[in-house]
């Protein structure tokens, strides 16, 4: 800190001049205080919703909450500062002088980019075994694809090392990795089969028959299957039990997607609605009317804020899921989009026939703007499966000519968390992660629209419980209610005063007394209400109007 040189006061001695050395030694810090942190980054780490009012609580609870809020502010600032340590930057693609990036083709990108990234673009020509559906594992390191005529393969697509390649001799409708690259679920023509990554068949689940779509909920270890019979079945793969088999009552189910934010399954129906399902409830959590015709594809982004749907009416709509469930933007397409997918950074891809279009938004939090596509690409056959590779700038497309891996700069999340999904994990790390993930497997009953619902103050159930107890028992055995009255039991008296008739008479007397009290009370309440109304009527409107007679 610099020295404070006080000016000599009038009439006092001039203080001795300071040594020149002293003034040189202490230099001013040009940026005093801690480094500033951008507010949006701090907001990202805040979990407490300060606008919600809590019910009135004791002083001790309130002081504890204040301490917790102060702590949260401090920790969110520290977390925001730690963002400096993130090593990677996301990719980008900019045309020169505002050129349309959609005109840039894949070959140009491959030429312009470094050799490691160029190797990520490949085309597998597999015309023999039918249109392909594909799935990337959760870390983005492994790819599994299955062709309609039974060809199933799993490989590490970065090193191009094949893990297994088999033909299951049956039509393959969908394929998913389970929690790690060790297990594959294949929805075959008749039943659901589980394979090892070496191609060994482990299970054949006959309760899941004629499955059209599969979705794996990674934190609950649940495999959701949508079948032609109209059933949505949840299979817990850690214990091997069917947790719920829900009848969607909407005919054949072949449009399914999961919301990664709250593990709710979105089913698209032929009457234009999208219904939201949780294994805990027999009825859908919500039903959203999206399109005029049938819904052909649904996708939800990774933060659970936006849902993209496309329908037979050739519309592509983006809905707001956290709040109003209203469409934010709409786009008419020349050809209906049969497949939709979101990337980790909010890019939306639509597969329309043999063309894929990718739309991008402004930043990570905003919805993709559907005005101008970001990139387009034509494939050698109609598209049957789409997925962005997690943590990479790559889009995998399964089509009738095989499997293509496209480069999409800016699609993948650059900085992964090593303890959640680490594409570079070793065998030991994978084993440790698997054990921990199984230990903290979330029970299926906790799936609901708001995943933070468990952290709320449970005011309603306290009061509801009390009401229910009073209904059932006439009084609340757990609560001390000084006003609550036990039903009147007349005391047995001597000398013939305890005959049935006199007991009934005594009971009647007490009941009538109570009835009179109640009537008196309700009359008083009515009078009060009338007075309030008159007061209101008098305060509003100084001049009487002809319509006043219709005011209730």
């Amino acid at each position: 800190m610099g020295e404070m040189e006080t000016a000599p006061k009038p009439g006092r001695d001039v203080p001795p001049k300071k040594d020149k050395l002293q003034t040189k030694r202490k230099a001013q810090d040009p940026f005093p205080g801690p480094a500033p942190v951008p507010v949006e980054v701090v907001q990202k780490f805040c979990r407490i919703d300060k606008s919600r009012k809590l019910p009135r609580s004791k002083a001790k609870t309130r002081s504890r909450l204040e301490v917790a809020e102060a702590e949260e502010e401090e920790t969110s600032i520290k977390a925001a500062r730690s963002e400096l340590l993130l090593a990677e930057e996301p990719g980008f693609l900019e045309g020169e002088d505002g050129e349309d990036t959609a005109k840039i083709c894949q070959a140009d990108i491959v030429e312009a980019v470094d050799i490691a990234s160029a190797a990520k673009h490949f085309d597998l020509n597999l015309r023999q075994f039918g249109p392909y559906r594909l799935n990337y594992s959760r870390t983005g390191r492994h790819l599994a694809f299955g062709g309609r005529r039974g060809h199933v393969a799993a490989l590490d697509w970065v090193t191009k090392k094949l893990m297994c390649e088999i033909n299951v001799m049956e039509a393959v409708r969908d394929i998913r990795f389970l929690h790690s690259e060790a297990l594959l679920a294949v929805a075959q023509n008749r039943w659901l089969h589980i394979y090892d990554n070496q191609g060994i068949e482990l299970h054949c689940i006959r309760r899941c028959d004629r499955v059209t779509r599969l979705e794996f909920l990674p934190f609950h270890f649940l495999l959701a299957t949508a079948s032609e019979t109209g059933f949505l079945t949840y299979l817990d793969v850690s214990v091997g039990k069917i947790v719920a088999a829900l009848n969607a009552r909407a005919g054949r189910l072949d449009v399914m997607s999961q919301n990664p934010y709250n593990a709710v399954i979105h089913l698209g129906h032929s009457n234009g609605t999208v219904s939201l399902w949780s294994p805990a409830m027999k009825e859908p959590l919500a039903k959203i009317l999206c399109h005029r015709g049938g819904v052909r594809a649904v996708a939800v982004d990774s933060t659970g804020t936006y849902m993209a749907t496309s329908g037979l009416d050739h519309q592509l709509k983006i809905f707001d899921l956290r709040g109003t469930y209203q469409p934010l933007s709409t786009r008419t397409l020349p050809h209906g989009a049969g497949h939709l997918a979101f990337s980790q950074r909010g890019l939306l891809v639509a597969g329309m026939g043999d063309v894929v279009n990718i739309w991008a938004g402004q930043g990570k939090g905003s919805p993709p703007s559907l005005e101008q596509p970001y990139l387009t690409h034509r494939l050698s056959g109609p598209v049957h499966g789409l997925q962005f590779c997690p943590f990479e700038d790559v889009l995998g497309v399964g089509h009738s000519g095989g499997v293509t891996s496209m480069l999409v700069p800016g699609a993948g999340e650059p900085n992964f968390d090593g303890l959640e999904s680490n594409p570079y994990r070793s065998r030991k790390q994978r084993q440790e992660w698997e054990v921990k993930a199984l230990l903290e497997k979330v029970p299926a009953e906790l799936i609901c629209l708001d995943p933070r619902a468990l952290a709320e103050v449970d005011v309603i159930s306290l009061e509801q419980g009390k009401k229910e107890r009073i209904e059932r028992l006439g009084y609340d055995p757990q609560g001390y209610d000084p006003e609550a009255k036990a039903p009147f039991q007349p005391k047995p008296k001597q000398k013939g005063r305890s005959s049935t008739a006199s007991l009934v008479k005594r009971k009647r007397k007490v009941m009538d007394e109570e009835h009179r009290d109640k009537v008196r009370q309700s009359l008083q309440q009515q009078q009060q209400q009338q007075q309030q109304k008159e007061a209101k009527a008098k305060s509003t409107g100084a001049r009487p109007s002809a319509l006043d007679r219709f005011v209730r």
Partner: protein
Amino acid sequence: RRWAELVPESSWSPAVGASKMKVKMLSRNPDNYVRETKLDLQRVPRNYDPTLHPFEVPREYVRALNATKLERVFAKPFLASLDGHRDGVNCLAKHPKNLATILSGACDGEVRIWNLTQRNCIRTIQAHEGFVRGICTRFCGTSFFTVGDDKTVKQWKMDGPGYGEEEEPLHTILGKTVYTGIDHHWKEAVFATCGQQVDIWDEQRTNPICSMTWGFDSISSVKFNPVETFLLGSCASDRNIVLYDMRQATPLKKVILDMRTNTICWNPMEAFIFTAANEDYNLYTFDMRALDTPVMVHMDHVSAVLDVDYSPTGKEFVSASFDKSIRIFPVDKSRSREVYHTKRMQHVICVKWTSDSKYIMCGSDEMNIRLWKANASEKLGVLTSREKAAKDYNQKLKEKFQHYPHIKRIARHRHLPKSIYSQIQEQRIMKEARRRKEVNRIKHSKPGSVPIVSEKKKHIVAVVK
């Protein structure tokens, strides 16, 4: 609408615009993410963005549930039983400098010194004829004092007798009446005994410096305050607790309770707080500045509470009761957090919390001293840094989710012997009946005529200054 933009031309020449675009792909160098040799640590980059860590609250809840269950699985508090006394253990004392040494006095006059790490008896002294009523160590740890039914106060050396020497007390004081308790000053060479009155003695003298009394009945125990070292508290048979000031040699004030207090113990961290173990199955924590209401009433025992001792942290205390159990209570809660019992342990007469706040020892009627862990599921010994971090994390999780019904149910669950369990049910019914009677009395009388007394004030009869 420009449909054309959606369908790219595959025959466009790559030279148009391609060379002038700016493109960068996300490309990681594996050298930054994979370790070089097997001897290195694995690299684990972290990103704390909440979107990468979905389902925080449910996952934490499941972890808290697992932590609570594991705590119950690993809850094995019993460590050792020290065998050797030939009659019930009447009193225990801790060595002030050495964690491993404890002293115990039995009902046949025998005093034994034990080593807790080797779990054996290192010295036996036939100190008195009759009960050893009290035992206390000097603050420097070189000697200890005992009082017995033979009206004597004896001072002994802490180190054993040398080769060829007899076991002799350093000093013997013959009194006129039976002494029932003794406690030594925490800093000076002064000790206090109680019997018919409270006597303060100087170690060099054979007569007490002063005798204080207030009331007509015998006094069962006396304790010096560890923080404000001139204060003493004592419990008398006429149901009162008297506080004395040594400097003025007068009693300060007293509080009269419903039933007799067996012992008191001062909080080693708060100068003015003490806890009294009462015959009416409760413990009362008092603030000595305001004796008219106890700070907290601790109710969980089903029989008379015989002894109480504070943890050195001052946050918890342990109580020994005539129902054959010991309970650990937090200072600010009215219910116990832990109960220890064994089939072999009969009425527990004395209890002590060791000075490193990790162990509890209790002496009981059946001649054994038992050693327990203060935290039943704690892992003893040196923990690695990972173990410590996991333990702290689990502790915080259990604290955060302690109010959720499933977790609360598991954390609260303790096995109780049938006698205590059935007594608890019976006493609950009795208390409920009494409460209902009170409520009805208030309901059916003129409002204000029946005073509503809080549970805390119910047990205090009077405070006298």
